[in-house]
């Protein structure tokens, strides 16, 4: 291997680019040719260029430490992840199937609970889910859509099979990076795009707006749609503002809205203007201080009442968290079978429920070999990676599991696939995952690819940005042979 790849080690992993040392997978061939001509300093210059453009555009998130927040860019790796068209089509079918089942599950859980009555999902699992909202039993959401935007995290195992790691059915973030990463790549490597037929991703904002408009109360053909953000100090504020701009709609904070007569209005210079659909990027708990958390200053008093009476639609709907609970996850393949009569196209990772006596015994006996996750945490928090953990960490989780068996699940360690990534002057293999964004409106749509997150710390399996993760552009190719 030459140039940037001259010291590259494939290792005992599924490598996205190399099928064996020196053996480039066909869909990476053109990229390999371009990059092997390149020396480290040229690549460094390209990195600096991309970084500067992110900084100047203010595509940053804020890290709070000491007396002032510092703004950082989300690390971006310039070596793209490439997915052949046929491979993606399979993934896409699997995701549509999965989200269809999840939406059916949510409808069922908040209505007849057939899936519980028929013994597929135990009732205590539903009732004990932290984000289950029994106050919405029997409530009909507009167009029967619960999860309008879902971010489902996929990984590839040792053989390269796409497997679902988790679903994010509340307020998944990161899609703005998919779109910005593409822009950055086009600026830095324009020629590569002329050689590859990369499926475009720019229709995301239009798809999202169409889905939001579709769920307007009363089928209003010209609804007022807004993005509700916690504000500029939220780490995802850039994304909220980006999406509002791309859709051409207002971005509002809780203070901009007021509820009168069970209708939601925004406060404008010309008086109050009624709002029909809210794409909210605030968790259920903070939506309405009169219903959920009393100390929330982000929400809007009366919003839940307006929603319950059907005068305003929320996306995502309230109570979707019961579907992305990590214990509920265990049951998703069964849901697919139950509601759709189909076999799951994308499998789950093997999962042990610590609430089950047999599973718990196995988990407690094998903590050093397993990954343990808190059922309701996200962002890479509340997680134990057994083989990398200290004795104390293992014992802490052991005690926590015994104290709250419903609060955890365990999975075998999966060595996520690796992708060549540029780290400190050399290209090395780093573990990656993939978060596609699935929109359900009149139809279910997914922009090709999604966010490829990369664990930039050597050997790390945690891809979250709060834990040293970065991202890559994800290219889905048109009409490419599967390798």
């Amino acid at each position, binding site marked *: 291997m030459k140039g940037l790849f001259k010291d590259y080690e494939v290792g005992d992993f599924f490598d996205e680019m190399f099928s064996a040392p020196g053996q480039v997978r066909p869909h990476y061939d053109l990229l390999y040719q371009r990059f092997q001509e390149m020396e480290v300093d040229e690549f460094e210059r390209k990195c600096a260029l991309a970084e500067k453009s992110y*900084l*100047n*555009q*203010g595509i940053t998130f804020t890290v709070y430490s000491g007396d002032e927040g510092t703004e950082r860019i989300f690390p971006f790796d310039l070596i793209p992840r490439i997915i052949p068209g046929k491979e993606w089509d399979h993934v896409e079918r699997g995701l549509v199937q999965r989200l269809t089942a999840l939406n059916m599950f949510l409808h069922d859980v908040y209505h007849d609970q057939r899936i519980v009555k028929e013994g597929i999902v135990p009732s205590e699992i539903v009732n004990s889910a932290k984000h289950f909202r029994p106050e919405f039993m029997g409530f009909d959401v507009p167009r029967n859509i619960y999860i309008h935007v879902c971010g489902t995290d996929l990984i590839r195992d040792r053989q390269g099979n796409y497997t679902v790691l988790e679903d994010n059915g509340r307020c998944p973030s990161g899609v703005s990076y998919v779109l910005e990463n593409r822009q950055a790549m086009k600026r830095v490597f324009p020629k590569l795009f002329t050689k590859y037929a990369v499926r475009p991703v720019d229709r995301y904002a239009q798809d999202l707006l169409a889905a939001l408009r579709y769920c307007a109360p009363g089928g209003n053909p010209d609804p007022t749609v807004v993005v509700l953000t916690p*504000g*500029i100090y939220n780490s995802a*504020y850039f994304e909220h*503002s980006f999406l*509002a*701009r791309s859709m*051409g*709609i*207002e*971005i*509002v*904070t809780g*203070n*901009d809205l*007021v509820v009168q007569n069970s209708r939601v209005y*925004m*406060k*404008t*210079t*010309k008086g109050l203007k009624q709002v029909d659909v809210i794409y909210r990027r605030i968790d259920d708990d903070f939506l309405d201080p009169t219903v959920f958390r009393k100390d929330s200053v982000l929400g809007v008093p009366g919003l839940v009442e307006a929603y319950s009476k059907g005068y305003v639609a929320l996306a995502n709907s309230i109570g979707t968290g019961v579907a992305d609970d990590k214990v509920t996850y265990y049951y998703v393949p069964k849901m697919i079978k139950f509601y759709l009569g189909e076999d799951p196209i994308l499998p789950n990772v093997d999962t042990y429920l610590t609430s089950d006596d047999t599973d718990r015994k196995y988990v407690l006996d094998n903590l050093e070999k397993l990954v343990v996750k808190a059922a309701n945490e996200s962002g890479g928090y509340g997680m134990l990676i057994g083989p990398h953990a200290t004795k104390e960490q293992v014992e802490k989780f052991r005690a926590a599991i015994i104290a709250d068996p419903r609060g955890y699940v365990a999975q075998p360690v999966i060595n996520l696939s690796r992708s060549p990534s540029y780290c400190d002057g050399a290209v090395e293999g780093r573990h990656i995952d993939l978060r596609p964004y699935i929109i359900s409106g009149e139809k279910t749509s997914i922009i090709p690819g999604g966010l490829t997150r990369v664990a930039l710390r050597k050997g790390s399996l945690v891809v979250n940005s709060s834990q040293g993760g970065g991202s890559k552009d994800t290219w889905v190719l048109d009409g490419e042979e599967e390798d």
Partner: protein
Amino acid sequence: MLSRVADSCYWLSRYIERAETSARILDVNMQLLLDLEDSSPEAIQRHWQPVLATLEDQELFTKTHDTITADAVMEFVTFDKKNPSSIVSCIGNARENARTVREQISSEMWEQLNRTYLYLRDGGGRHDFQDSPIDFYRRLVDILHGFQGTTDATMTHGEGWDFLQLGKYLERADSTTRVLDIKYHILLPKGEQVGGHVDVTQWMAVLRSCSAMEAYFKINVGHVSGWQVAEFLILHDEFPRSIRFCVDRVDGALHRISGCDRAHFSNEAERLSGMLKSNLGYTTIESVFQQGLHQFLDKTQARLNEISGAATKAYCYWMDESAQTQVQA
């Protein structure tokens, strides 16, 4: 338009203009310093004290500093993050406001403002300042003018733009009153006459800090007096930093926002701006000096504040008080 967005556009614009005023005043004062014959600490102190007085920074400055030196004042007015009206703070505040209205302003405006912020924070601003403060302040004024041009050329001239204009011209009118007032605070050295060499130099500095020298000399060929400088900066119809010009733009922006014709008013802000506009239209420089220039400027500042307050009340009256933390100069 959301009231909060209108408010942010308005303040974004005021902060930009305020940063520009500070940069101008510091630039001119630096240059005046070069003409100063007496370089004793007392003379230096006399020279810089009016800058603090004009920018209403004196109280905070004396709390944190024992003596007035050129370096201390420049640092305080330019880079001190603890000084809420330093240039760095103003640009930071302008940027925070811009961040909340990114869907209103153009990406070009945002990126330009963001680059300015990054430049001042660590991207070379400090280095340029150390190389040559005068060049640094000019460059900054240039950058901020660039922002005005970008705004004009890339943003829809609708309601948001009108709120930007409102903020810009209110702040600019206010800043011209302050620059003129600087002369009131500067005492002529012992033995110097009104109309003498030092007096004229000081009035020329006032003109320069408003970029008004060339425009002024086109009208008052070769002659500088306090009377004429004041007349030019208060009453000129077409000079873009004169108070009359700025108040006319304020009044225009307010009427465009409401859609009310300019001979009438539909809210208190328009009534106040219309009154100030007509007062300035029917004022002579003689009557200004009769009541006293300082008193006139003081009163004008108060009236500008009233317009600002009334505009907030008209368009943002339901905003929480907690959100209204931005303050008048």
